[in-house]
């Protein structure tokens, strides 16, 4: 189809770029539109040809559908996944289709990666557009994007076995993308801990105490137990972002992984670290060249500004007072104390201080508006002290209660079923534990992955057909290996399931769903 031109020069079969359609519209200034490109050591001509193709397609498809330009191009040897992150700012991921089965993926899963990286970026640095406005040369946004996305891609850590959906991608030199093996996961959702009423009340009581510690300012909190969300007072989008970040970097497992990697995974891990580092180093030099050319720009003198890299690894550790600390945000101006991290909330567009307290498996994330805390770090430490004074007893109690009710990493395993349950309204998902999913055969997983692809299509079609009206959908497939692969959606909830050791008949399969639905979804999927 002639679209494979990019592929000829891509060795790794993976490209990732971000560009701004409003920039570089004049002959000779094309480079200006590139905000990020991976791999960075590709010649600019190749980068430009990838972007040029994407831009052309976007412009073309906009003629027919101004609101939603193209989403994906399926070429013979690769797929282009598009995501318009902000108006006129596009993210494109190009993935190679190879014979290896590992490169069977779901487009929607890939797009969710794009969405995730963008919303995390916005949470820490603000929107790309705002950075561009701040520094029209683009240098500021480039340096931030580069550091951020490389951290996002490169950081590979040993995943704990039940770390459900938030993994990093770079294995050695190869980017490991979500493949069919991850079809029982849903990126961009949170996983919740199921708690009884009593525990829930205790948690809420704790949350209220915490939020009252900053005085009258409106503050927010997120409570995690292990890697599961217990309570949030944030809006859904902000919850997802912070939850994602917490699971990646803050939760006990994320902190622990450092220790464990030294103990028995040293070899593999260091190898990957070295590999990642080399990628960074090599690409770094190229980017140096690229951005180096800008040194003459009026802002060149400020190049020494500190680029905050929130996704850097092993930068968080537990302080003496139970609060997690990091030096990512650099030292406070004029002092040796590390600056308190800040994040930007999507909903209120307000910058907040981020305080994280950890007690055993319990992680409390607190957000205070910067505007409400008068004298910076001093004010923060007062608030922290308040928290320790007022809430530590309650925290102990809550931790104890939740630990008692916690069923371990296989708590949500349901014997005989491999499932994924997504509540689109709440952005919550629950799945069989990863350890159990690995017992499925490849065939089943590929079938499910394909089935999900179908459902994704069907869903997006329904969205355009009849907004506000969700369709009920049910598909049961008998896979080649005689497994039942089932998808059912109803009113915003989705259930995907693989039954490998199931009986022959369809009746059995639908019985199994009925049982599951009644038992674990309070009947949401048992309409008939």
């Amino acid at each position, binding site marked *: 189809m002639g679209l494979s031109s990019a592929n000829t020069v891509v060795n790794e079969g993976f490209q990732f770029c971000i560009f701004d359609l409003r920039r570089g519209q004049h002959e000779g200034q094309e480079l200006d539109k590139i905000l990020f490109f991976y791999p960075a050591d590709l010649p600019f001509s190749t980068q430009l040809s990838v972007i040029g193709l994407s831009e052309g397609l976007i412009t073309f498809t906009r003629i027919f559908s101004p609101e939603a330009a193209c989403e994906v191009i399926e070429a013979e040897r690769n797929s282009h996944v598009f995501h318009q992150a902000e108006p006129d700012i596009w993210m494109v991921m190009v993935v190679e289709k190879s014979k290896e089965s590992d490169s069977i993926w779901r487009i929607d899963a890939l797009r969710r990666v794009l969405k995730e990286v963008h919303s995390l970026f916005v949470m820490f640095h603000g929107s790309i557009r705002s950075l561009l406005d701040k520094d029209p040369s683009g240098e500021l946004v480039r340096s931030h994007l580069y550091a951020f996305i490389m951290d996002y891609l490169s950081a590979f850590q040993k995943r704990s076995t039940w770390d459900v959906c938030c993994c990093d991608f770079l294995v050695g030199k190869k980017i490991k993308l979500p493949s069919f093996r991850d079809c029982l996961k849903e990126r961009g959702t949170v996983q919740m801990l199921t708690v009884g009423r009593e525990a829930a*009340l205790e948690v*809420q*009581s704790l949350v209220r105490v915490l939020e*009252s510690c900053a005085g009258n300012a409106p503050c927010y909190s997120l409570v995690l137990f292990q890697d599961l969300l217990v309570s949030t007072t944030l809006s859904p989008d902000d*919850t997802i972002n912070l939850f994602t970040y917490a699971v990646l970097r803050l939760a006990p497992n994320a902190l622990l992984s450092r220790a464990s990697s030294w103990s028995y995974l040293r070899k593999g891990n260091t190898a990957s670290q070295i590999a990642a580092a080399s990628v960074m180093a090599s690409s770094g030099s190229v980017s140096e060249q690229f951005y180096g050319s800008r040194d003459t720009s009026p802002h060149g003198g400020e190049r020494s500004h500190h680029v905050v890299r929130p996704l850097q690894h092993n930068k968080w550790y537990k302080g003496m007072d139970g609060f997690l600390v990091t030096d990512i945000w650099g030292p406070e101006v004029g002092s040796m104390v590390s600056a308190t991290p800040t994040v930007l909330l999507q909903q209120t567009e307000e910058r907040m201080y981020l305080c994280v307290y950890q007690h055993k498996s319990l992680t409390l994330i607190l957000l205070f508006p910067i505007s409400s805390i008068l004298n910076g770090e001093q004010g923060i430490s007062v608030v922290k002290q308040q928290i320790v004074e007022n809430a530590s007893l309650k925290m102990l109690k809550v931790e104890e209660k939740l630990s008692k009710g916690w069923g371990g990493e296989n708590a949500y395993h349901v014997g005989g079923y491999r499932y994924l349950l997504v509540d689109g309204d709440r952005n919550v998902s629950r799945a069989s534990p990863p350890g159990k999913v690995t017992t499925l055969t490849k065939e089943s997983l590929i079938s499910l992955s394909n089935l999900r692809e179908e459902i994704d299509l069907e869903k997006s079609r329904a969205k355009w057909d009849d907004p506000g009206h969700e369709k*009920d959908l049910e598909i049961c497939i008998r896979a080649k290996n005689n497994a039942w692969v089932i998808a059912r959606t109803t009113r915003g909830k989705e259930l995907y399931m693989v039954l490998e050791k199931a009986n022959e008949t369809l009746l059995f399969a639908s019985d199994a769903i009925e049982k599951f639905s009644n038992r674990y979804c309070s*009947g949401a999927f048992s309409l*008939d």
Partner: protein
Amino acid sequence: MFGKASSSQLSVSLGGSGALSHVYIQHPPLRCSIPGSKGLFYDDGNKLILSPTSNQVFSWKTVPFASHVAPTSDSISEGPVLSIRYSLDSKLLAIQRSNHEIQFWNRETGETFSQRCKSETESILGFFWTDCPKCDIVFVKTSGMDLFSYDSEIKSLHLVETKKMNVSWYVYTHESRLILLASGMQCKSFTGFQLSSAGIIRLPKFEMAMAKSEANNKPVLAAEDVHIITVYGRIYCLQVDKVAMLLHSYRFYRDAVVQQGSLPIYSNKIAISVVDNVLLVHQVDAKVVILYDIFADSRAPISAPLPLLLRGFPRASSSSYRTGNKDTDGSEANDISDHETIIYGDNWIFLVPDLICDVAKRLLWKIHLDLEAISASSSEVPSVLEFLQRRKLEANKAKQLCLGIVRTVILERRPVSMVTRAIDVLVTSYSNSIKTGSYFKGIKAEKPPTSDVSNVNPPTSVVDESIRREDALGKSIKHGSASGVENESLNRSPAFSVSDSEENVSFENSNHLRSLGAKADRENFKVAESSQSEVQKLSLQSQLLGPSNSPLNANNSENLESQVTSAAISPDEMYSCVFASVEEEMAGDPAYFVTIVIEFLRSANVERIKVHPNIYVLTVQLLARHERYAELGLFIINKILEPSKEVALQLLESGRQNIQTRKLGLDMLRQLSLHHDYVLLLVQDGYYLEALRYARKNKVTTVRPSLFLEAAFASTDPQHLAAVLRFFSDFIPGFKNTADHSAYCRILNEMDSSITT
């Protein structure tokens, strides 16, 4: 109205200014003046004030304390009267004529007989009637106790038992059924008996502590220095140690008497009252009263010493009781010295538990607690609430005060931890009242409290083995006197322990007979003789209500009070009187209010109390109004807001702006198996096919077919319309003959033809 008043007052008082008195007596008193009276006597067994004249004895009921009670009279023969008491069944009247003789009248027949001491060496110190199964009347003599039973056949007393010992003086209260016999040089060795309907229990002998002023000067304990009190169903003895200036307290158990610590005193003359289980220590010389609530272990007074107040006296106009007390008191005293009372005057005799008798002026006052003032005097909200929750006598007022306090602390946005503790107090108290049943009794008992009084005489046991908390709420007696369970249950209204109920606590006046003592009686004598000519009109008035001004109000709340015997506040009342009203007044950020609701729910959950769905509905409204849908969802999913139809409907209502919330409401309806509503709402939302499937599965037949048909028609999909038509034709017998069927068949045909053309 109550609430408003109290809350406004509270807000003032929490700011620091205290009231000027916590205890008051209400004007007008009960006037017990009869021409030719020989004095006043208090019969605590029957709660009567008796006033004998030369040939008659007049008696006024003090329970319920009402000022317009007219006296009844019995004729008696002439002669000296040292002491006078009716039998507990009121059939006999006993008059102590001398140290050796007691005379009896049969009120029905008018027959009389006398009982005399056998020997001239012993003399009668006093006597009392008892409901002990073994005997009917007990004579206390210098040589011991004689227990007699009355034989109605031969119309005379029959000696049952004699307990030999030397007795200097004795103390008895009918309330506790306990008699303490003092002996020894210093009169500080005591033998105690409890003569209750459960039988006679002999207490171990014990000595009271007496400090010595000098080595050789041994003080002698007098009868007026020893007080038996009953609080929270426990029996204590308080002993005034004038040398050490301490008030020692002893608590009685079946097999032990345990000293419980001492309270400081600031006056040589001490009087003791118990009002609604609150101990009042009158420092008579200092003219102040100190209040103690000895429920908890703490011996700290409830508040600072303040004077006793005379309320409602005509000159002391309505406002004076709160402003410049002292002055008005003084002026009153001057104005009315002829015929009115001087606070802590020399003629005051304190009748246990809560009456004051002015023997010179023949007035009887009842002591009241000013709960508002007490609650206003402390800013320690949780402990004030605890105190108020324990009040039974003015339960309704205490309740209103509690509600007012909670409202105020929430409106003032006090620290969450403090409000939490306050709420915990109320919830725990309610939970306890449910367990002991007193709450429901309060709801049910609309009968006048007096009807029970005669047969609910509590055989309060000395025995009090368990000192656990619930005991204090009134079960102690039940637990304690295990030995007498059968008797008690015969004697009592079945489910409720006696000390728990209002009547008993307030009306079981223990007779302080002799501890008012010989002295008191003699005083009465003299006074009676000296003031025989004085004639005073009797006027009696209800004094149950404190500060409310108009008599109409007074009556209303009196009625209320007779119904409410517990200050416990149910979750429903919490909702209607606190949350609903507070929510209206609290504008802006709901975070604080939600916090309080959460704390309330947590507290209720700990006590396993069911909460009114309205609280949940309110919370849903609040969160939705401030668009905190994420939290709302979390609350619903975690069942912090328990599912109910009300909540579901509110979610649907609030979900008009937020489809996720609406779905939560729908899901809740389904989970509650409210099939009809669920199907109806599905159809309304346009999910008619799903609704049909659900209707068939759950056999919902109550939703009109036309609704489904209309929805299907609105979708302009002939296939769907046909499917719906077919469904009803197949599953509802006779549907084919309805107008709906034919109408929609025609519509369907038109749709088909329009498509094909």
